[in-house]
């Protein structure tokens, strides 16, 4: 039986000597509030991206192309150059940026509504072309921004605004598994599906993002990161339940793991993890 010790003050830095190991927002995120919901997974995912950019010392040569979704409202908080795309169109804009400035790190940030609904064609063509950019999918299985309707990635049985009894294949069709759909395309160098529902998964998210960005800078071709993010608002559940819901419902179908890695073949210790059907191999 554990027993909680008393609450201690936490509004001021400690007087005891020490150093800051995590400083509120990371360096490439401007301070202050943002407009996303309580418990939203998207800021965590985007944070991971900019932290990896910082680690790779690419802050001064990166351009992020944002889709339209809840993350859009977050984009002006980044201290990384941002190009705002229309809904679904980010991969083509990224292509234009990369072709014009081949030395830049170019990545997109798109939701499942943005990428898998409105802009499915763009990302597939970009991938098939082997375009040397990184597309990042924040997959929460709903159109968060417009009220939580079903998207093309919503898993069967998932509850959304217009599938309150759960998505039913007969009425609403089947989900698209984006990482697996892209994997067979020849232009694709790296694909990993991550999640931000717990610290372990966040750590892997960071690792795989770093690998994708590094491969882009090495000219490997198209790289793809799918991040499963919590959307308690669109899932109509409590914020605290969202990480488990993600693990139990979403990641059970959209399995976390490296889906493709053309660099793995050459490596002695490939940075490759077997897909993990539960997404919850965790210390939660």
């Amino acid at each position: 039986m554990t027993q909680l010790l008393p609450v201690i003050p936490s509004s001021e830095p400690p007087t005891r000597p020490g150093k800051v190991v995590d400083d509120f927002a990371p360096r490439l995120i401007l301070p202050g509030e943002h407009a996303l919901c309580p418990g939203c997974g998207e800021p965590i995912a985007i944070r991971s991206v900019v932290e990896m950019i910082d680690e790779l010392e690419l802050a001064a040569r990166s351009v992020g192309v944002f889709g339209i979704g809840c993350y859009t409202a977050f984009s002006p908080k980044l201290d990384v150059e941002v190009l705002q795309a229309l809904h679904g169109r980010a991969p083509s804009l990224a292509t234009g940026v990369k072709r014009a400035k081949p030395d830049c790190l170019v990545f997109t940030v798109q939701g499942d509504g943005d990428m898998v609904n409105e802009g499915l064609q763009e990302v597939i063509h970009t991938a098939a072309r082997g375009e040397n950019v990184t597309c990042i999918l924040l997959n929460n299985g709903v159109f968060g921004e417009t009220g939580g309707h079903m998207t093309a990635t919503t898993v069967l049985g998932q509850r959304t605004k217009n599938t309150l009894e759960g998505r039913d294949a007969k009425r609403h069709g089947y989900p698209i598994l984006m990482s697996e759909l892209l994997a067979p395309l020849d232009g694709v160098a790296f694909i990993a599906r991550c999640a931000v529902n717990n610290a372990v998964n966040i750590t892997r998210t960071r690792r795989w993002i770093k690998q994708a960005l590094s491969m882009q800078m090495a000219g490997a071709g198209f790289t793809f990161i799918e991040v499963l993010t919590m959307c308690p608002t669109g899932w109509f559940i409590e914020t605290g339940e969202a990480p488990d819901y993600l693990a139990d419902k979403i990641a059970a179908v959209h399995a976390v793991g490296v889906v493709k890695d053309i660099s793995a073949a050459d490596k002695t210790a490939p940075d490759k993890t077997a897909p993990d059907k539960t997404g919850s191999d965790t210390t939660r």
Partner: protein
Amino acid sequence: MAGPATSGQQSVEVRGTVVIDVEVCKGCELCIEACPPRVLTMTEVERNAEGYLYPRLHQGCIACGLCAQVCPDFVFQVWRYDTPETVSLAEVTGS
């Protein structure tokens, strides 16, 4: 091992602390689950200006930074002490 006291323990090793910017917290409770020693708890009545409950720190932080990592609202500044502080249970609980 640091963290909240298990019955029988005499002292805990506190490796660091966190500064909590409660005004930007949105009360989602993700940090609560993420904290390995479980030294974060939510307020029950007090709310910030936006009306959200927010976390408080109990004695026993191990400066692991997981709260900061999972927090969608960048509420935490995590400090690692140069040397851990050993806190006697008797002292802090007053028992």
